[in-house]
């Protein structure tokens, strides 16, 4: 007996049961509905009255209760056979990655890069050519600061760039701690290098790093960290 041959009361009962399975997966719903249709068809084929069959099945809402209770079901004491999935596991996309914390990390790096560009790519005075007879300046030579940068300033800028570049690439449980460490080091670096002026240029990057450190991780990230093995 196919679904189309079932009496109207049975079809209504099945429709009501399917409605209650809205929260179940499509696969689970299909499996449950297949079983119920087959059950009803078999019972009717044995000569049972449709009312008796439906009474014994119980109210359609009974179908959903065990399903909703058990989604997802964890059974730590019994290991079920592992079903081989042919679909590759889904990698987290850019939408999952770009949280407020990540955005602040990237902004911190961008500000460090901007500071380095501002300092390096401006021109600095190198020297002048003076006419020996008249004493007038004939020519003034300038070049990019990049080529004649004070080593202290160069090291500071490189350190700022490297430090702020790390947190965006760190995933997992280490990310919050790494972000906090970078924020601390950047703050100390910016403050201590203000005497060489470069500290003021990297201060915005340090502030962004501190903001990144203070932004809490999202619930999704927290769940992902919990699912990772310890030490990951």
């Amino acid at each position: 007996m196919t679904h189309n041959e079932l009496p109207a009361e049975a079809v209504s009962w099945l429709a009501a049961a399917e409605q209650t399975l809205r929260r179940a997966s499509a696969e689970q719903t299909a499996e449950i509905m297949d079983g119920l249709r087959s059950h009803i068809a078999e019972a009717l084929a044995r000569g049972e009255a449709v009312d008796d069959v439906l009474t014994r099945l119980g109210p359609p809402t009974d179908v959903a209760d065990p399903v909703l209770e058990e989604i997802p079901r964890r059974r730590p004491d019994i290991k079920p056979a592992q079903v081989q999935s042919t679909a590759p596991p889904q990698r987290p996309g850019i939408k999952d990655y770009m949280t407020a914390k990540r955005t602040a990390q990237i902004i911190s790096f961008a500000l460090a890069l901007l500071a380095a560009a501002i300092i390096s790519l401006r021109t600095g005075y190198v020297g002048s050519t003076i006419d020996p007879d008249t004493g007038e300046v004939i020519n003034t030579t300038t070049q990019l600061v990049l080529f004649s940068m004070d080593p202290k300033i160069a090291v500071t800028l490189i350190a700022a760039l490297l430090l702020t570049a790390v947190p965006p690439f760190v995933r997992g449980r280490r990310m919050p701690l790494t972000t906090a460490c970078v924020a601390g080091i950047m703050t100390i670096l910016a403050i201590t290098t203000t005497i060489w002026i470069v500290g003021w240029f990297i201060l915005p990057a340090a502030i962004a790093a501190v903001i990144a450190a203070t932004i809490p991780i999202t619930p999704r990230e927290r769940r992902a960290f919990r699912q990772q093995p310890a030490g990951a």
Partner: protein
Amino acid sequence: MVTSERVLTSLRRGLVEFCALAILRDGPTYGLDMARRLEADGLIAGESTLYPLLARLLTSGLAESEWQESDAGRPRKYYTLTPAGRDALEVFENSWIPLRNAVDRTLRRPS
């Protein structure tokens, strides 16, 4: 107020799946047959509750299903126990019997 229905519902939860596996241990069985046996033993109230349970056993890999033609020519879905289901049932039996005995002893203990 604690009613017998509440107590039974609470007890059945967690036990019925293993009783279903025990029925499958005897050989491939179809849904109506299993439902009638479980209902006759008082292990399920409404027969429809068997099917979400079977769906879960299939998802967990403890049982598998197959459509077969019945004697009357109508397709019938048969459920069979997998090796994992057999192992799960053995684990349950090893846990249930001591638990059942402990509960019996506790209930019989004079206060």
